[in-house]
C-alpha cells in the first residue's frame, strides 16, 4: 500500500478501566470515527465507542428461515410431485415425517449464516490492516487495550488529537501509518 499519510492515532492502556474511561471521553469529545481493541470481549468498551447494535442476529434469522423453508419445500416437492410413491393410499404430503430434516436444515443454515455473517460484517478475512504496523499493537492479544481515532474523523487534527490522547493517561500514543 502506498504511503498516503496517517491512518490514525492509537493510545495504549494496560488495564480495562482506563481504556473504558478513555473511550468514553473520546466519544464525549465528539470523535465518531473511533475504535477500541481489547484482549477479550468487553461489552462496556463497545458501548463506549457508540457501537450498540449489530446485524448478526438478523442474518442468522434470515439464514435459518431460508434453510428451513428450502428443506421443507424440497421434501414436499419430492414426495408429491417429483417422486410420488403410493403406500397403501396414505397421503403423499406426509408432513410430520418431514419435520426433522426441516429442523436440522434450519439449524445448519442459521448457524452457518451466523458465522459467515459475523465474518463478513467484520470484513474478515483481511490479510493486511494498518494497525498491525504499530509494534506495540502485538500486546493486544496478550494484556493491553487500545483506543484509536481514525484520521478520517472530521475533528481529527494531527497535533490536537495527539495532545488529547496523551491527556487520557495512556502508556503510549502511536501514529498508525496507512
Amino acid at each position, binding site marked *: 500500500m502506498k504511503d498516503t499519510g496517517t491512518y490514525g492515532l492509537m493510545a495504549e492502556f494496560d*488495564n480495562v*478501566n482506563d481504556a*473504558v*474511561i478513555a473511550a*468514553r*471521553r473520546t466519544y*464525549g*469529545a465528539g470523535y465518531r470515527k473511533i*475504535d477500541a*481493541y*481489547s*484482549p*477479550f*470481549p468487553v*461489552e*462496556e*468498551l*463497545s458501548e463506549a*465507542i457508540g*457501537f450498540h447494535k*449489530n446485524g*448478526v*442476529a438478523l442474518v*442468522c434469522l434470515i439464514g*435459518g428461515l431460508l434453510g428451513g423453508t428450502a428443506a421443507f419445500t*424440497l421434501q414436499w416437492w*419430492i*414426495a408429491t410431485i*417429483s*417422486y410420488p410413491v403410493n403406500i397403501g393410499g396414505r397421503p403423499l404430503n406426509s408432513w410430520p*415425517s*418431514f419435520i*426433522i430434516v426441516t*429442523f*436440522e*436444515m434450519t*439449524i*445448519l443454515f*442459521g*448457524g*452457518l449464516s*451466523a*458465522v459467515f*455473517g*459475523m465474518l463478513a460484517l*467484520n470484513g*474478515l*478475512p*483481511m*490479510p*493486511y*490492516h494498518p*494497525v*498491525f504496523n504499530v509494534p506495540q499493537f*502485538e*500486546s*493486544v*492479544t*496478550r*494484556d493491553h487495550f487500545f483506543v484509536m481515532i481514525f484520521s478520517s474523523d472530521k475533528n481529527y487534527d494531527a497535533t490536537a488529537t495527539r495532545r488529547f490522547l496523551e491527556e487520557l493517561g495512556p502508556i503510549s500514543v502511536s501514529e498508525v501509518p496507512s
Partner: protein
Amino acid sequence: MAKPTEVEAGEQKAPVIQPGHTFASITEKVSAIVLRRPIMGGWVLGMFICFIILQWFLFAVCWLFYRGVGVWGVNIPIGWGFAIVNFVWWIGIGHAGTLISAILLLLRQSWRNSINRFAEAMTLFAVACAGMFPLLHLGRPWLFYWLFPYPNTMSYWPNFRSPLVWDVFAVSTYLTISLVFWFVGLIPDLASMRDQTDNRALKFVFAALAMGWRNSVRHWNRYETAYLLLGGLATPLVLSVHTVVSFDFSIGIVPGWHTTIFPPYFVAGAIYSGFAMVLVLAIPIRKFYNIEDFITMRHIENSAMVMLATGWIVAYGYAFEAFMNWYGGDPYESFLRWNRLHGPYSSFYYALLITNLLIPQILWVKKIRNNPIWLFLVSLDVLVGMWLERFIIVIVSLTRDFTNSAYGMYFPTHIDWAILCGTLGFFAACMFLFLRLLPAVSISELKTLLPEAEVTVEHETEVHQ
C-alpha cells in the same frame, strides 16, 4: 462474565482458576504448550502406539473394502452388528462437548470456559469416528453421496420418511455446526498464537487461520452475538441428534426398540458417556501439561456430578423399559425381558447393570469425586458400560425377534474388533495432535474469569470533560 465471588469462594469449592494469574500469564502458559514446550517422550510413545493401531485399522478397512461386509460377524437375522453399536457409542461421546460449549454457555456456567475447547475437539473427533461406521457399512462406500438429495440421472430421491435419512441430516449438521463452533472459538486464540510466536512459518500459518483478527471491540461485539446464537442453535441440535439416532431403533417394530422412552434415555446416556470421556481426557491432560491452574478440581468434580445425575436418568430409562415390558403385556416384549435376563447374552446384561448403574454410585462420596485416579477409573467403567448398553439394545433384540426359525447368534470377527480399536486409535491420535498444534484451553475466555476483567468504573464517569 466472572463474578469475583466465584474466585473467592475457595473455602467451599475449588476455584475455577487458581488465584495469581494475569492476562499475560494465561496467554503465556497456554501458548507455551504449543510454541515452547519440547516434545516429550510420553507424547512420542503415545503417538507411536496410536500409529500402530492406525495401521491395524488401515488393514482392516482395506480388507473390508476388498471382501465386503461379509468379513464382519453380521449375518441374518443380525444385520446390524458392531457398526451401529460403535456408531451410537461414539456419537454419544461427542454430546458432552456440545453440552459444555453450548448449554453451559447459555446457562452462564463460567467454569465451562476452561474445558470447552478440548471438549469441543473431543466432539469433533468422536463424531468423525462415529461417521466412519455408516460409511464403512454401506457395502459400496464410494456411492455414499446417494444419501443426499441431489438431481441425478436415475431420477431418484432419498426416502424422507425414513429415520436413516433423518440420521444423515442430523449427523452431518451436527458435525458441521460442531466444527464451526470450535473454529469460531479458536479465531481470537489463533490471533494470540500469531502474536506469541517468533517462528516466521508458524506466524504465517496462525495469521492465515486467524484471518486478520485484530481484537477490535466491534468485531468482539459481533463475535459474541454469533457465539451466543451458535450456542442457542446447538442446544436443540445436540438434543435432536441422539433423539434422531434413537429413532433409528424406535421407529422400527423390533421388540426392545419400539418404545417412546428411547429419545430422552438415549440423550441422557450420550451425556453420561460423554462426560466420562471428558474426565478420561481431562485428568491426564491437566496433569501432564501442568494446567491444573486452569482445569481445577472444580471442573473435575462438576463433571463427576453431571455423570452421576445423567447416570440416574439412564437408570430411570432401564427401569421404565422393564416396567413397560411387563405392563404393556406384549408377549414379544415380555420374552425380550426374559431373554435379557436369562438368554445367551445375559452375562452382558448383568455386566451392563454393574458397570453402568452399580459402580458409578461411588460418585456419591465426595472423597471419590475429588480423587482424580478414582474418577478416571469410574469414567472408564462408564464408557464400557455405555458400550455394553448399545450392544444389548442392538444384538439381543435382533438375535431373538418373532419366530423361533429366525433365531441366531452374533459373534464379532477380528475385523470387527480391529475397526473398533482402530477408531479408538484414530481418536487418540487426533487428540495428541490437537494438544500439540492448537491452544487446548481457550485463552480469551479464560481471561474473562479473572477479577481484572471486570469493568468497575461507573457509566457516568466523566463522559463530558
